[in-house]
């Protein structure tokens, strides 16, 4: 009896704590959604009315569309440089340069020691008086700050499928290099690369610090637009935030689907390892590095 009672107290305590957390995390979101869909809201539990006019106004605002366009352009450019330069290099390092890979593993946490403000200070000192356009510097800075996500994501995927052995097997069986790349490397690295791309895309899309301090007013991205509107019209800027939240929600859903696919890829391998009474070494899970820049 006593044990049962204790269990119930514990259950109630857990429910209360979880309710507090959900309130803390949901209230700001609910508040923003309600604010974005009303013309006036004060002194009452719910807003006085319901309207879509802020969203309409937003879609008719050329500066908003231009800001979305700029953020999109920036994300695509950074993503292309990462897919073109960083991803192949990391694959190469993991395959052929084990010592560099070990060093990288330790360096990956370094961006926490170099917050954006420090990087901006260094870059402004170095490039603000040169003829190199700050736009390139911005892309370079975003490229550098993406390293941890890309490195951990790609390395994790390669470990999960044991890429090295796969490639060695293919080459001992006499497969020509182009075929190895097309038939073995690409398909196996695809899921991990898509996951990493999603994270990079959403983090660059919502970037503020580097963009604002490196080129600032001359290049108004979504977040800079958000801040400008915040001081003019609260309802309108809530509408921007709601749209932005929908955007990260979609990215999160896609990430969730891709992670599940990655897990499905891994499960058979894991089972095989378990049968050999060996445990698959636990690498850094991709989820761990999602978005904390």
């Amino acid at each position, binding site marked *: 009896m006593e044990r049962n009672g204790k269990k119930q107290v*514990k*259950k109630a305590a857990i429910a209360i*704590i979880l309710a507090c957390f959900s309130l803390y995390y949901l209230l700001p979101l609910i508040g923003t959604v309600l604010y974005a869909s009303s013309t006036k809201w004060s002194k009452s539990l719910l807003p006085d009315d319901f309207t879509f006019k802020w969203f309409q106004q937003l879609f008719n605002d050329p500066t908003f569309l231009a800001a979305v366009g700029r953020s999109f352009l920036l994300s695509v450019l950074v993503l292309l440089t990462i897919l073109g330069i960083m991803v192949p290099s990391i694959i190469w390092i993991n395959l052929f340069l084990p010592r560099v890979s070990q060093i990288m593993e330790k360096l990956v946490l370094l961006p*926490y020691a170099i917050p954006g403000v420090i990087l901006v200070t260094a870059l402004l000192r*170095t490039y603000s008086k040169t003829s190199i356009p700050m736009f390139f510097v911005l892309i370079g800075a975003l490229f550098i700050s993406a390293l941890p996500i890309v490195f951990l994501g790609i390395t994790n995927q390669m470990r999960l499928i044991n890429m090295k052995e796969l490639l060695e097997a293919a080459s001992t069986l006499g497969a020509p290099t182009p075929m190895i790349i097309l038939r073995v490397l690409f398909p196996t690295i695809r899921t991990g690369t898509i996951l990493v791309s999603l994270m990079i895309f959403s983090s660059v899309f919502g970037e503020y610090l580097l963009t604002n301090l490196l080129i600032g007013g001359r290049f108004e991205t979504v977040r800079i637009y958000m801040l400008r509107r915040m001081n003019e019209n609260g309802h309108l800027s809530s509408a921007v935030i709601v749209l932005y939240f929908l955007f990260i929600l979609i990215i999160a859903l896609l990430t969730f689907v891709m992670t599940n696919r990655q897990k499905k890829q891994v499960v058979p391998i894991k089972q095989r390892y378990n049968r050999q009474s060996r445990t698959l070494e636990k690498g850094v899970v991709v989820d761990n590095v999602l978005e904390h820049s």
Partner: protein
Amino acid sequence: MKKHLPVLPLGVLFVSFLFIPLSLMLIGSFRSDLTNQWTFTNYTEIFKNAYYNQAFVNSLLIALASSILGLIGTFLLCLCLLSLSTHIQEKVASISNLAANFAGIPLAFSFIILLGNVGVLKLMIPILASFNLYSWVGLTIVYVYFQIPLGILFLYPSIKEVKKEWLESVSLLGGSSWYAWRKVAFPFLKPSIASTFVILFANGMGTYETAYALTGNNINLLTVRIAALVSGDVFAKPNLGSALAVLFGLILILTMISVQWKGMVKNK
């Protein structure tokens, strides 16, 4: 050498956008903003100037408060999550990623709607009427909002590793569950807790966007000071800003080393 050739572009980008700028920043911090001569005045000014000292203290305090509260919150939430089904656990973990994404301007504004000067909650709940979102308490509440998801990202995988059997065997031997957590689970989790703390601390100290969106230049934080010194204002003092940034980086690196080093000694 041939093996290293394909990595050359990556290396060049790293050298030109990270190593060279950081070195030039370090060198620049020893040059005067007025005469461009070698000097220590940037550093001596920082130590003498009460305003900059206050910025250091403020940043340290908010980082400490938000990371300790964030850790406690993370721990509580993880413990509650463990009692739920694994299916729900995974969902909550991925939702917490979303919350981490929400940091910055959107987060600041959401809290202004709720608790700002004419905040909705303030008008509805009289007790909150005197609450000031732009104070240190307010800032901490907003910081903790993005610290907990980050904490979960790093701590949750380790907490999941605490086996129920360990705790059960302690209770079989007559120990309370508090004893089991203190003597079995906590020592196991200690290294992860330490490194999560370092990450939260660095994140709290490095936060600029949220603080700036909430209070503009009015708040005296290290990140806000540095940004004001180096960004294109008329009164820009890039070398003084560099010196602040160097000291800031040193604090973060020292924290990292001291916590990690303790862990290394323990392992031996």
